[in-house]
């Protein structure tokens, strides 16, 4: 499958977490994708693209939003100048600077590019922010003639870009308590699963732990934290799994 489909199916978002548990990220940068959009298969994307969601359209060019990151040693201004000159070298690209855009990561720059494709002109807005030698690029795009229809949705996506050290801090107090309780229970269950003498990976993947604890936890995150969006849910599940593994070593 090239697309992972709707993200309310836990089976479809389970696979990537196991492959990325060794990675520890001190900060999480995320955005809230539009409701009902499909999650693109990560394995088919550039490694710089952290996540991509695809909307629906009757036209060939589907609306989409994605977040890419890149390690950089340059200032935001220099980065923007490089992006501008890259686009100017491409005869199919028209680039525009839309000005400053404040984000929780710091001051960013909103840019627009129009690319000629065989399905028509693709218009994309790119919010670019640099924090701690890393560029975060949030791209929202659609067919030029459809762009105004998606404008409000894209604006909400751009506004939702945030960064946090603790993903649970982004939810309401009531839900935070519920989440901490759920995570505590999961930790206890995982500690018990490890005591059976199997490896951490085997304990995590065991049928009993998956069926009785991990899958219900995953389902609860997906069903009860819809307001946080699929990307936050994915990051949280990945982070919880990482914490389980880390605390058990």
């Amino acid at each position, binding site marked *: *499958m*090239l*697309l992972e489909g709707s993200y309310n199916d836990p089976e479809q978002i389970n696979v990537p977490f196991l492959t990325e548990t060794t990675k520890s990220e001190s900060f999480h940068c995320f955005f809230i994708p539009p409701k009902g959009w*499909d999650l*693109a*298969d990560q394995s*088919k*994307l*550039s490694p*710089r*693209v952290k996540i*991509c969601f*695809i909307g629906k359209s009757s036209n*060939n*060019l*589907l609306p*989409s939003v*994605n*977040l*890419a*990151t*890149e390690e*950089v*040693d*340059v200032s935001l201004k*220099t*980065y923007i100048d*490089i*992006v501008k000159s*890259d686009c100017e070298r491409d005869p199919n690209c028209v680039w525009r600077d839309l000005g400053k855009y404040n984000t929780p990561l710091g001051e960013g720059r909103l840019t627009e*590019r129009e*690319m000629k*494709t065989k*399905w028509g002109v*693709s218009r*994309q807005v*790119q919010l*670019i922010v640099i924090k701690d030698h890393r*560029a975060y*690029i*949030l*791209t*929202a*795009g659609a067919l030029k003639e459809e762009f105004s229809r998606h404008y409000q949705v894209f604006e909400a996506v751009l506004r939702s870009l945030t960064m946090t050290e603790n993903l649970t801090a982004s939810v309401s107090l009531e839900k935070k308590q519920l989440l901490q309780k759920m995570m505590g229970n999961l930790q206890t269950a995982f500690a018990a699963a490890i005591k059976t003498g199997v490896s951490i990976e085997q304990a995590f993947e065991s049928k009993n732990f998956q069926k009785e604890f991990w899958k219900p936890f995953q389902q609860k995150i997906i069903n009860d934290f819809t307001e946080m969006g699929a990307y936050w849910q994915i990051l949280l599940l990945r982070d919880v799994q990482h914490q389980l593994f880390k605390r058990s070593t």
Partner: protein
Amino acid sequence: MISFLLIALLSFSSTVQGRDDLQDVAINTDKLWRTGSGAHDGSYTAISTSMIAWGIGLAIGIGILCAVLRPSTNTSGSSSAHCH
């Protein structure tokens, strides 16, 4: 003899130093050249994912067509067998 050795040593170390400097320049140039690839990849993904999505749609369409055609082919095959 000593002065000859000193000159040889100095010229050798400056060659090595020169090579290191060149390497640093090459690394920095390469870094700068690659800078902006995140924005490029984000833009490319916005277009390419549409192709992927339509590819999936096409594959599903072909799959459904095959599934519809297969039983009808089997049916006609079995009915002709009955005729014989």
